[in-house]
């Protein structure tokens, strides 16, 4: 009896303190983004000015993505984040699973203010960016023209880096093998297409270094570990601006995708979150972001506020998007597990 009472006492004390902890968590608005140079730029043009303009206290954190992280946060019932920037597949899955609040566009300037691909029932587009072929102009005599050159070790000897995993890698292999950008997913949807991509990868298998985080490719280029790499276009720009590097990139056959802002389900700071998204959705603020880091933005009028010199380096510039492919979210949702297994089988051979 006594033993049980003690146990009960402990349990009561434990749950009481747990309850206290959650009550004490009336916290500030927390915005989560991708870290690195990108988040520095966001701090400068969104976070700090927003705090000044509205007087709302907010803090920012960074994360590495992964729908599992968001699922754990929301289902665990103690989401410490409010607004998160997610990739397109996270947006789709999270929307399916009900992890995000439905986006109320009337509070952020209306759907008409944004470019059509960035409007989603669960989120609003933040940036449009590319995976491009990046290289170091100081080290290469022969400048690569596209993915075909990336796979040509005779023409350009040396190691290359690609993102570890099947996503982006298989598309790049197919384009290198002569598939037109617009047909990539049509070919990849067939077993022969997958075969063909892996066959192409076989040709440079021993020359590939696999990167895992977006910060790695510029480092690999800078240290001379690789001569070419797939890389987010903004990282190349930042390295050139801030580290005085002389990196080049190829827009032809680039893979573009959107990142979106979402509000996590059950956020206690919804009003502040909408105020922030409204602020970050305004054309004049988005234009400042593009001036700081070379990403396209979602507001229809943002591009019009930019100098032509800035615009020509953006993924959204007409010349740059002409031969680019949008990463197909639906395809990867359906095939990511299978092709990840396949990719690792291939890598281990």
């Amino acid at each position, binding site marked *: 009896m*006594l*033993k049980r009472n*003690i*146990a009960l006492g*402990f*349990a009561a004390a*434990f749950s009481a303190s747990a309850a206290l902890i959650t009550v004490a968590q009336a916290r500030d608005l927390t915005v989560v983004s991708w870290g690195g140079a990108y988040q520095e730029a966001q701090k400068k043009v969104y976070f700090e000015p927003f705090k000044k303009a509205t007087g709302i206290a907010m803090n920012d954190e960074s994360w*590495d*993505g*992964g*729908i*599992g*992280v968001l*699922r754990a946060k929301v289902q665990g019932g103690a989401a410490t984040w409010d607004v998160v920037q997610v990739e397109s597949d996270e947006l789709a*899955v999270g929307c*399916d*699973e*009900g992890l995000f609040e439905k986006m109320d566009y009337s509070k952020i300037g209306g759907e008409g203010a944004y470019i059509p691909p960035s409007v989603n029932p669960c989120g609003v587009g933040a940036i449009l960016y590319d995976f491009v072929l990046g290289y170091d102009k100081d080290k290469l005599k022969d400048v690569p023209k596209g993915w075909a050159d990336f796979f040509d070790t005779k023409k350009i000897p040396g*190691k290359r880096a690609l993102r*570890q995993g099947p996503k982006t890698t298989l598309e790049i292999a197919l384009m290198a093998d002569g598939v037109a950008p617009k047909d990539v997913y049509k070919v990849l949807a067939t077993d022969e297409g997958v075969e063909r991509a892996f066959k192409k990868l076989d040709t440079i298998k021993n020359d*590939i*270094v*696999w990167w*895992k985080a977006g910060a790695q490719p510029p480092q690999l280029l800078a*240290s*001379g*570990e690789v001569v070419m790499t797939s890389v987010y276009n903004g990282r190349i720009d930042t390295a050139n601006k801030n580290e005085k590097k002389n990196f080049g990139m190829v827009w032809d056959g680039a893979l573009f995708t959107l990142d979106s802002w979402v509000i996590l389900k059950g956020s206690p700071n919804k009003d502040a979150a909408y105020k922030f998204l409204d602020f970050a959705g305004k054309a004049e603020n988005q234009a400042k972001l593009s001036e700081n880091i070379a990403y396209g933005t979602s507001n229809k009028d943002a591009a019009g506020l930019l100098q032509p010199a800035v615009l020509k380096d953006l993924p959204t510039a007409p010349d740059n998007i002409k031969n680019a492919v949008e990463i197909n979210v*639906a395809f990867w*949702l*359906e*095939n*990511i*597990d*299978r092709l*990840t*297994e*396949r*990719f*690792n*089988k291939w*890598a*281990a*051979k």
Partner: protein
Amino acid sequence: MTAASLTGADAETKMPLKRRLKQAERARQIKALALVLPLLLFLLFTFAGPIAGMLWRAINDPEVRHVLPQTITALAEWDGKDLPDEKAYAALASDLQAARAAGTVAIAAKRLNYALNGFRTILTSTARNLKTLPEPGTAKETLGRINPAWRDRTTWTTIKNASGPVTGFYLLAALDLVRNADGAIVAAAPDQAIYREIFARTFLISLGVTALCLILGFPVAYLLASLPPGRSNLLMIFVLLPFWTSLLVRTCAWIVLLQSKGVVNDGLHWLGIIDEPLRLIYNRFGVCVAMTHVLLPFMILPLYSSMKAISPAYMRAAASLGAPPLTAFLRIYLPQTLPGIGAGSLLVFILALGYYITPALVGGAADQMISYFIALYTTETANWGLASALGAVLLLATVLLALVYGKLVQGQQVTGGMKN
């Protein structure tokens, strides 16, 4: 309370001594228990609970049951030989209508897609195209028209196999096995059978790293144990300094050292030993080097403590009885260090099994260990069932090894391996 029962108890109660003794004993036990209770609760909440949760997730299969309840009921009596009857089709149509309204179609689609690639499209497109409930008796025809997959037995066995509430699907997948349409367990398709290989790779790398740590750590521990205290303390700091440095820092330092234009390659090039840079990183070599460096202190410390306890008199006695140094070492010294070797090896091996950051940063695509895949399925693709199943298999293998180790070292602890 206990004090009272021992002193003034005789007078007021006529309890027999035996019972009073029992009571006093019980009070003491309760006190002892109360002291360890916080730790027990802490372990329960932070250790046993999550592990139980993980094991449960590895066999739990709630999604399809939750989204398509009528279909599951209708398929319960289906023998799986031919296509199911009209009733099952009607149930599915009504389930899909309800799921579409509730926005839960994707949850079932995701789960079914694990078992049959392409199921996500089948289910979501069917739900989308099913504008109204089919007339009674026409469900089979309507669904077949929307998507021919519904005329295929495999589609239905996939749903039946995923009907939960518990499933072996994820555990089988973690061992490269699948259940075919007839319910027999068969090997997975060759291009998807990767996990056995990855488990083998994980164990192999861990074993290699453990062996390297033992070879490098043994002489260091011996030196530490035999030097006079002042100098051995200085050396000990050299051992502990990396031990206190962040894992990430040490791993990144290895990248700087080993990359093709790194310190090592440049040094060798400058000395004229090599013309082309050696490939020292983003391969198995880099993983073994970095992991050995990171885990070395875990080997040295247990070895050192077991060697500290060995009296030098033994070796002197062996020498005075005419044993050559090697014999004396092999027959007298080494057996006494066995507990240290065992503890150090087990510690390093089990830590190495779960390594994630180091192989991810300095390994190639073919050097990723099982933890990389557990992390991938946990965060990126959110296939928690498979992540848990892989974790469960790893846990089981580790526990088995620990048990084998326990059996091996039993009885050697006290005598240091020297039986009379």
